[in-house]
């Protein structure tokens, strides 16, 4: 901090000059105009880098271009990129958004920030009506859809690069609907199973088909997520655990009483990994009968846990 100028004051002035200019400004032009930069060139450069990062982290669209001298980089912010369009919200509409952000738990901090920008209103202490799940990758996925960009992420330990089309919140989870050019198919991914912070690539290059022209259904069950061939699965449940299983599997699943008192529940699934997770949730009250490879994989999975823990 130089001359008692706070970081907040300095950054606000940098933003003001970047918005005010009609041409690209060099770092030297900015730091010599704005009060509060250190004298030393090294410290000044470092401070400017940090201020730039602060602005970008808040979503300020700083654009760059090489300057005519061929050495320096020029910076500016186009007001049209920066300003929020006036939504002309009526008082009723502003109040409705305020109620929504207050009554639906998602990420209260971001929701509150949006309210201040949209209508200069705060969240109120409304009773909670709905809680939506959050996932760390969600905001980046949303940004990629808005920017019509490609998205690269790690999912079930595999790297994917897809064209994100839509987000759906169903059954308490967020799903990404995307086109995977590597397989030439539309795929569904669970946002909470994206393992890393996704990377947004090539903004403006993705053609998102018009809403209604592609399938946005998630499928009936989490074990239909991620693509692949559907397989018939048969699991034997102790009574009454088959009832809880049927409730979660939906109307497509069938149930049949077995001689040993258990119930055979049949359904189809594309992701055997998801079925394994579902079945293990019933502990010793469920046994996979078919397909054989799922049965084998559960046995070796359990054996590896038994071995490691000993």
């Amino acid at each position, binding site marked *: 901090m130089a001359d008692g100028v706070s970081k907040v004051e300095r950054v606000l002035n940098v933003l003001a000059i970047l918005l005010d200019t009609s041409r690209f400004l060099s770092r030297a032009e900015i730091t010599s105009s704005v009060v509060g930069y250190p004298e030393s060139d090294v410290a000044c450069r470092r401070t400017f880098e940090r201020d730039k990062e602060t602005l970008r982290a808040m979503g300020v669209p700083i654009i760059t271009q090489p300057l005519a001298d061929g050495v320096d980089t020029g910076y500016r912010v186009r007001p049209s990129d920066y300003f*929020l369009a006036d939504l002309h919200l009526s008082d009723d509409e502003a109040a409705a958004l305020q109620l929504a952000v207050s009554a639906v738990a998602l990420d209260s901090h971001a929701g509150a920030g949006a309210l201040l920008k949209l209508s200069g209103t705060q969240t109120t202490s409304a009773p909670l009506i709905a809680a939506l799940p959050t996932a760390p990758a969600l905001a980046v996925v949303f940004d990629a859809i808005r920017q019509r960009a490609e998205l690269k992420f790690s999912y079930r330990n595999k790297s994917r690069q897809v064209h994100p089309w839509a987000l759906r919140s169903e059954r308490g989870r967020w799903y990404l609907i995307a086109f995977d050019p590597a397989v030439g198919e539309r795929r569904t991914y669970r946002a909470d199973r994206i393992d890393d912070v996704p990377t947004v690539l090539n903004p403006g290059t993705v053609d998102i088909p018009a809403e209604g022209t592609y399938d946005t259904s998630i499928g009936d069950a989490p074990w239909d997520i991620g693509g692949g061939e559907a397989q018939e699965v048969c699991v034997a449940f102790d009574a009454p655990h088959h009832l809880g299983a049927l409730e979660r599997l939906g109307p497509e699943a069938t149930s049949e009483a077995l001689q040993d008192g258990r119930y055979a529940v049949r359904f189809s699934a594309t992701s055997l990994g998801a079925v394994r997770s579902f079945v293990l949730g019933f502990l010793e009250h469920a046994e996979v009968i078919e397909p054989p490879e799922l049965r084998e994989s559960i*046995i070796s999975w359990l054996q590896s846990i038994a071995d490691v823990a000993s």
Partner: protein
Amino acid sequence: MSNGRAIAEHEIQRILALVPWLVANPGSLRTDVAQRFGISSEQLDQDLDLMLMVGVPPYTPGDYIDVDDDGETITLRMADSFRRPPQLTGPEGLAVLAAGRALLAVPGSDPDGPLASALAKLADALGNPNIAVSIDEPPHLAIAREAVEERRELQITYWTASRDAQTNRVVQPNAVFFAEGAWYLDAWCRRADDDRLFRVDRIRAAQLTPTKFPSNDDWVQRETLYQPRANDPQVSLDVTADARWVGEQYPAESIEDMAQGGQRITLRVSEVAFLERLVLRLGPSASVVKGTGPTDFSAQQSALRVLARYGATTGHNTMPKPH
């Protein structure tokens, strides 16, 4: 992000929203402004002092934001650079759009009301991203919400999946809310003489009784469905990067970052079965830190118990005979 940087960002964002609002609302009452933006009168003074220092080249007196503060009302001039608020960030746009779509999906919402028109305007400004929230409507949702609204006792027939049992109960409903994909009724249950959480889709029959009950001052809204108690045993799990969702999904006491994107997640567990399910599902992605967790828990024993179900460890498949 360091705390200092987070505070600076928060202040900058507030001022960038405050300036255009003051420009658009000249002569605003100081008290009203402070209340809207959730700040104290002293903080407002500091923010206004700061605005006086913001300007653009050539920095003549007319190039700085002009604040007219008579102690009661505020008027701002010369704030052209910040005449509009900044665009919504990704998290902000998502938060408000998703919250609005969720509330609109709640049964009983007006599909043509101010919320719907506000969301249409907002979606348009955000480039119309395709984002939707679906919320189902179990048969007895409306009556459960009515009971909360009118503070009347509700008689329900409730099905418990784990026991396949139906019980008749009289409850005093405090709240109905949607979480983790299902509707819940948070109510004081006469039969249990305690607060209970009921899944609305497992209510098999419901009838509103004429009995009114007084408002319960002790009742506090739940923050999560699963509320650990302070004396529940703690367990620490070392998870690999692909199982970081555990820390998001369950209320963790602490999360420490470890090598290669892994984490040490400490949770409170009220029942061993919860921990068994979690550890068996995670398999090689998690290991329980020695010396933590309920004393009668062993991942090995749990795995062996479930393995016993599969008979011989060869995985030989014999289809049980139907009736």
